[in-house]
Structure formats: structure tokens, C-alpha cells
């Protein structure tokens, strides 16, 4: 009869502990949410940065230039022999088309600059076009090759921002000494430009001050010898900044190598400002205007990055602007990126070669790894006796799954290439190496899937007299299929993204052709990304990012397939 007290005290105790338990639960939920938010924001950051960088590679500026296919340069004797047509001087034709657009360009130095607008490799596609259709010879066609990658970047505003301002105050033109024009207008016409220049000079001076201040900080810890050098340097910087400020405040500004470029466009011509006062501006002619009459409408193009700090000269920028304005340049979808293989020129480089290489490699991987992996898993799980040997095998399979992939590459190099003398750089070898790497993943996933099939299904099949093999293939395998498929596809997706082993067997070579078979030299998407990422030119940056986007999309497609297949084949019992 003393018992009834106990339930009450139990209740009280439980009630007392409840808030703590609920708090713990809430805390845990909060941690979970925080983890997910962190993960998603990391992913979003990655996707955003890749997307922002890669986006511009999907469009490109292409020429839309009239080009006369002069018979004298292709087939002077009119033989119509394809061999002779193929040897035509197509590069010269392209250069002529550019010269026709800018007839004022005379000097060799300027011409070399002008011809750099279109890479020499473009002559190959022009030649192919003519060889395919010799009737074009002697006619005028539209030349549509991509613009040189540096100019492309310039027009996209990725080298420096192109600040345009349109003006409508009247100006008169005075011919100065050789190639110098002076434009004059009402007072204050150029004040705004001058203010801009002054500001940028002050900014540069402030930067020099900051540099000097930093050196001064280091002075205390430096040795006497170093301090001496640095003191001189600080003084230099100070003088430089002073001159800069003084120059900035002068009534007439003379533009130097450290100043932004001010390009003035009028009458279809361009001059580069060298001296500016509030009412007049003198400049070097970069493209002669069509007339010397008074100007009503003109525009100013300001490029903040000084000319010497960029790969595109003011002269080239002016040509690109003129071509663009005349409609001889068009921005369009970068189809070349999806149809070409790798190239030395970024504007001609594409991922088609790497993509086909990846697909062929993955095909070889699939053909080798999937049947072996699944059959091995079935044997180990359903038929093999459980003894020390199979335990040993299991441990080793698990170990194999954790071996760094480059080791598999070395193995492939030593065995497939050096022992069996298989072709270098071939998707076949790459596929086999990746198959070795993927095998343990497939085996482990398949074993787990087979193990998860309830034993009652096996008993049911055995109970009606099915043999072991019939039981496995009629009942266990179909039920394990979704799990096996998921594991296999995840393994293959990993193989698709693998780089290191492919480097070892030579799939890192520069290959300018789309591979045609399992044994032709090829490269793969991740290797292509690696190659481009380590290239120097700026244009590779966006192409690398674009290739990453494509690779990610491929991965997403693969993984979605895995999810889809799992749902499709999932059966309940």
C-alpha cells in the first residue's frame, strides 16, 4: 500500500526532465538546419562563381565581313584541281578583307596589328569551305570566323570597362602636324573629361602614398642596408605622387602612359587624346575621319586601364569599335565551343573533343567494370562460402576503394602501356584504368543492395524448388537492381570526374581532333579543364569555367538518371 507514491514521483521527475529534453531536440534541429544552410550556401557560392565566370564563354564576337575569294590567290591557272585549291593563300585573303575594311592602314607594324584581329588558324576553315564548294572562287562571301580572343574580351568589357558618352556640342577640326588633329569648341566642352582625368590621377597619387606608407612601416625592422634602399624608394614615390598631383591640377592636361585612354569618335574616325584643355582637345589619329567639316555629334570612349597594361592596344580597340559600329562584328552563340576540339587559340577551342573522349572512356569503363563488378558482388554475397579467404577478399575490396586514384593511373601505365603495349592517350586504356578504380565501388554498392533483399524472398523461391541460380537471377537481382544501378551510376559519375589516373596514361596531351574510336588519342573533360586552367591567356578563364559548367551538367544528368532508375525499378514487398 506504499506503492502509489512511486508513480506520482516518477511523473514529477519525468515532467522535470521534459524541458531539458525538448531543448536538446530543438538544439539538434537548429544544428541540422544550420548545417544544411551552410552546405547550400557553399554550393550556391560555387555555382555562382563558376556560372558568372563561364557565362561569357557561351557567346562570342564573330566577323561578318565581306571577303572576296580572289581566284588569283586560290587557283591562278583555273585548274579546279582540289589539291591546288587546298594550297591557296587563304590567310592572305583574310588579311586583304581586313585591309579593305581599313584602307588607311599602311605601315607594316600597323598591318601586323590589324591582322591580329583574326587568328591565322581561321584560314583552315576558310580553305575547307572553298575546297568543299569550289564554285565560290571569284565571288564575294561573308567571312564569319570568330574574332581574336583578346578583342573578344575587350568588347565584352572584361579587359577594362568601355565608358561611352555621347555629346552633341559643335566642334571645329584643325589639322595639326602629322597625324594630329585639334578639336575646339565652346569653353567647358571638355571640362567633364578633364575632371575625370584629374580624379584618376589623384587616385593614382593616393595609391603611391599608400605604397610609401607601407614601406615606411617596414623600415623599422629592416637592416641598415635595406633601409637605405627603401628610403630612396620612399622619396621617389613621394616625388612621383607630388608631380602627379601638380600635373593633375594644371590648366592643360597632357596625357601620359599612366593615364586612362580617352578616345574621341566623330565622322566615323577616332583620335586618341594627347592634350586636353577646357575648350580644345588634341589627339593622334587612330582612324581618319571621313570629312574635316565641323562636328555636331561625337562620342568619347574612356578606357580606365592604361594602354601599356593591357594586351589590346588603343589602335586595335578603335578598329574593333569601328567594325562593331559598321555591323562587321556580331555577338552570337559560341557554337564553336561545342563543335570543336581543343585549339591553341581560345576563340577556336571547344569541348567536343574532350566530351567525346569522356563518353568513350566512360563507355570502356562501363563495359569493363559493370558486368565484372555486379557478378563479383553476386558471387561473393550469394554463393561464396564465408571463410577466411572471402573475409580477406572483402577487406581488400574495401581497401581498394580507398586507394588514391593516381595509383591506379600508375598501375595502368605500368601494366596496360608498358606490359601490354596498348596505345597511349587512348580512351580504351583510360576506361580500363577507371574501371579498376570504379570496380570496388560497384562491388560494395551491389553487395549492400543484394544484402538488403529480404531473405523471405529467397526462401519463397527455394521453397517452390528454384535452384540457387534461379533464385538469385529471378528474384534477388531484380529487387537489388535499383540499389545496384544507383551504386553503379555514382561510381561512373566519379569516374567521369576523375583526372589524376588519366594524366598518368597520357590523356593529358594536346589533341586537336575529335577522337573517333576507343584507341584514337583523346582527352577527357576534367583533364581538359585542368589543361585550360593552367593556360596563361585570359580567355581560357571563362572557357575553363564554361567547361566546368558542362561537366557539372553532365554529372547532374547522370545522377538524375540514377534517381529516375531507382524510382522506376523500385518495388515494394
Amino acid at each position: 500500500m506504499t506503492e502509489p507514491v512511486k508513480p506520482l514521483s516518477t511523473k514529477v521527475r519525468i515532467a522535470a526532465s521534459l524541458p531539458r529534453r525538448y531543448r536538446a531536440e530543438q538544439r539538434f534541429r537548429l544544428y541540422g538546419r544550420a548545417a544544411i544552410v551552410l552546405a547550400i550556401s557553399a554550393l550556391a557560392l560555387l555555382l555562382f562563381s563558376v556560372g558568372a565566370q563561364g557565362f561569357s564563354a557561351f557567346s562570342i564576337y564573330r566577323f561578318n565581313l565581306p571577303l572576296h575569294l580572289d581566284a588569283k590567290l586560290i587557283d591562278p591557272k583555273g585548274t579546279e584541281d582540289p589539291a591546288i585549291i587546298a594550297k591557296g593563300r587563304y590567310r592572305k585573303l583574310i588579311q586583304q578583307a581586313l585591309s579593305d575594311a581599313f584602307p588607311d592602314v599602311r605601315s607594316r607594324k600597323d598591318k601586323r596589328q590589324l591582322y591580329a584581329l583574326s587568328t591565322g588558324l581561321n584560314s583552315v576553315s576558310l580553305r575547307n569551305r572553298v575546297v568543299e564548294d569550289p564554285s565560290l572562287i571569284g565571288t564575294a562571301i561573308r567571312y564569319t570566323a570568330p574574332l581574336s580572343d583578346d578583342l573578344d574580351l575587350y568588347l565584352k568589357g572584361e579587359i577594362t570597362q568601355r565608358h561611352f558618352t555621347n555629346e552633341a556640342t559643335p566642334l571645329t577640326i584643325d589639322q595639326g602636324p602629322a597625324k594630329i588633329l585639334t578639336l575646339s569648341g565652346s569653353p567647358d566642352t571638355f571640362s567633364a573629361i578633364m575632371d575625370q582625368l584629374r580624379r584618376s590621377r589623384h587616385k593614382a597619387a593616393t595609391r603611391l602614398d599608400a605604397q610609401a606608407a607601407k614601406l615606411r612601416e617596414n623600415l623599422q625592422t629592416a637592416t641598415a642596408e635595406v633601409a637605405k634602399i627603401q628610403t630612396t624608394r620612399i622619396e621617389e614615390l613621394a616625388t612621383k605622387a607630388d608631380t602627379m598631383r601638380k600635373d593633375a591640377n594644371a590648366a592643360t592636361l597632357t596625357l601620359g602612359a599612366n593615364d586612362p585612354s580617352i578616345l574621341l569618335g566623330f565622322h566615323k574616325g577616332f583620335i586618341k587624346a594627347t592634350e586636353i584643355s577646357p575648350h580644345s582637345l588634341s589627339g593622334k589619329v587612330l582612324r581618319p575621319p571621313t570629312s574635316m567639316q565641323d562636328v555636331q555629334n561625337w562620342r568619347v570612349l574612356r578606357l580606365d586601364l592604361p594602354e601599356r597594361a593591357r594586351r589590346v592596344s588603343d589602335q586595335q580597340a578603335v578598329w574593333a569599335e569601328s567594325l562593331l559600329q559598321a555591323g562587321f562584328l556580331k555577338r552570337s552563340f559560341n557554337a564553336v565551343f561545342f563543335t570543336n576540339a581543343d585549339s591553341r587559340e581560345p576563340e577556336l577551342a571547344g569541348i567536343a573533343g574532350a566530351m567525346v573522349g569522356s563518353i568513350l572512356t566512360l563507355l570502356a569503363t562501363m563495359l569493363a567494370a559493370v558486368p565484372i563488378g555486379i557478378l563479383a558482388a553476386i558471387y561473393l554475397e550469394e554463393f561464396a562460402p564465408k571463410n577466411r579467404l572471402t573475409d580477406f577478399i572483402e577487406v581488400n575490396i574495401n581497401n581498394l576503394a580507398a586507394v588514391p586514384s593516381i595509383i591506379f593511373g600508375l598501375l595502368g601505365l605500368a601494366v596496360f602501356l608498358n606490359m601490354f603495349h596498348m596505345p597511349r592517350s587512348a580512351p580504351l586504356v583510360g576506361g580500363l584504368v577507371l574501371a579498376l578504380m570504379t570496380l570496388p565501388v560497384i562491388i560494395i554498392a551491389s553487395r549492400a543492395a543484394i544484402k538488403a533483399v529480404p531473405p523471405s524472398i529467397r526462401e519463397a523461391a527455394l521453397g517452390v524448388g528454384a535452384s540457387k541460380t534461379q533464385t538469385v537471377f529471378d528474384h534477388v537481382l531484380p529487387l537489388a537492381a535499383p540499389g545496384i544501378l544507383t551504386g553503379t551510376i555514382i561510381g561512373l559519375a566519379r569516374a567521369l570526374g576523375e583526372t589524376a589516373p588519366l594524366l598518368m596514361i597520357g590523356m593529358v596531351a594536346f589533341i586537336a581532333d575529335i577522337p573517333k574510336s576507343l584507341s584514337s588519342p583523346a582527352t577527357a573533360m576534367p583533364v581538359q579543364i585542368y589543361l585550360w586552367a593552367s593556360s596563361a591567356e585570359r580567355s581560357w578563364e571563362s572557357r575553363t569555367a564554361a567547361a566546368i559548367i558542362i561537366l557539372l551538367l553532365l554529372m547532374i544528368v547522370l545522377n538524375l538518371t540514377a534517381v529516375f532508375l531507382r524510382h522506376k525499378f523500385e518495388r515494394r514487398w
Partner: protein
Amino acid sequence: MQAKASSAPKVRARNVNVFYGSKQALFDVNLDIPDCSVTSFIGPSGCGKSTFLRCINRMNDTIDICRVEGDIHLDGLDIYARDVDPVILRASVGMVFQKPNPFPKSIYDNVAYGPRIHGLASNTDELDGIVETSLKRAGLWDEVADRLDEPGTGLSGGQQQRLVIARAIAVRPEVILMDEPCSALDPIATAKIEELIDDLRAHYCIIMVTHSMAQAARVSQNTAFFHLGKLVEAGPTEQIFTNPNDTRTQDYITGRFG
């Protein structure tokens, strides 16, 4: 000789010992089971009745560590003889499990699977016939005749269990082993299964493991009581329930332990 053969037991077990690794699960079981009747195995959990049942169609072969000693004869033939293929044996000794375990396939395919793998039907018409008779015998035909292509797993528990019985019947077994066939079912489904077992008795030797004393009394003609791996007592059900020889049997039946 003929007369003797018909009165001879369908299944004859002599000195059956079963080991799981080093642990012995059955000790010297001797039992005769007659044809065309229902025999119940009763006893507390872990007494070895299921183990013995699984010996009769060599289901224990699938367990690596399990070892069976002694003789079990089916129609006078040693089923553990070297030349007996367990696949053929299991075709003639069907089995129904505790939890209904239809294949995740259509009702039709569930029943047709056995005949198909054994090649019992030479054409689809014949197979259709086997499926129909089996489902009819299992008393399920009227309920599923118009939805044979629906998954067997979509049926109710009791229907699933009858489907499983139909699946077992389809391969024309002589003996049907049932391991607690009603333990996962409600009373109405149980009653249906019991009715079915009573019908099937005319054609098959049915051996059933059950935890329900009432079920054993209702359905079976013979009962065997197992305790701690030993066969304590076996005989006609009426005698076991009304006048057991052994006190342990008496105690178990009256609910004093178990």
C-alpha cells in the same frame, strides 16, 4: 505389399539430430507422419519444431552452419541421400512460411513461377490451367480472377497467404510444410486458411507448425509435441489433447508453461 505401402507413413524420421555450429537443436527425433492428413507440431518457442519442419524439404541446407544427422525418408526414399537433388525434393515438398512472402510480381506470375521453372506446362494454355486450378484449390480464384496481372503484394495478408499456398500447390507437391501459417493473420483470415487446410488434406500430406493449441486441435489429425529439442510425444490429436502420456505435454497443453 500394396496395402502395406498405403498404410506406410509418408514421412519417416529416424534419429534426427540437427546442429547449428556446435549447438545441438534437435535430439534423436523419431517420427512417422501419415499421408492425406494434417500433422501439427506444437511446443514452446525455440523447441526445434520449425527446425525439424525445415529438415523435411532440406531448407536447412541453405544455412551454412547447419548440419543434419539421421535419416528422413519420404515414401521410403532417403531424402538426405547423396543422389537426391534438393531442387527436386522441394518441388515435391512445398513450403508456406510464417509471413506471407509473395514475389513482387503479378498474381499470375507468382503462381506460374514454379511450373515455369520446372517446365510443367508445355504451352500457355496449360499454364493458364495450372494457375487457375491452383488458385481455385487455394480458394482465391473468385477473389482475384479478374485481376491476375496485379501485383501479388497488393493483396491483403490472408489473401497473400492463400496466394502463397496456391504457389506451393502449383508445382504439384505431395507434402506441404506450413510454418505458423496463420500467426500473422487476423481471426477471419485464419479461419479461411484453416478451412483451406482442411480441404487440402484430402490430397496432400500437410505438416504444420503452430503456436495455437486451439488451431492444432481444430485442424490436425495428429499432433507432435516438441520440448527443448526433443520430441516428447506424438499421436492422434485427440489423444494428445485429452489424455497425454507425458506430464510435460499435459502441462504445456493446459497452459502451465510455454
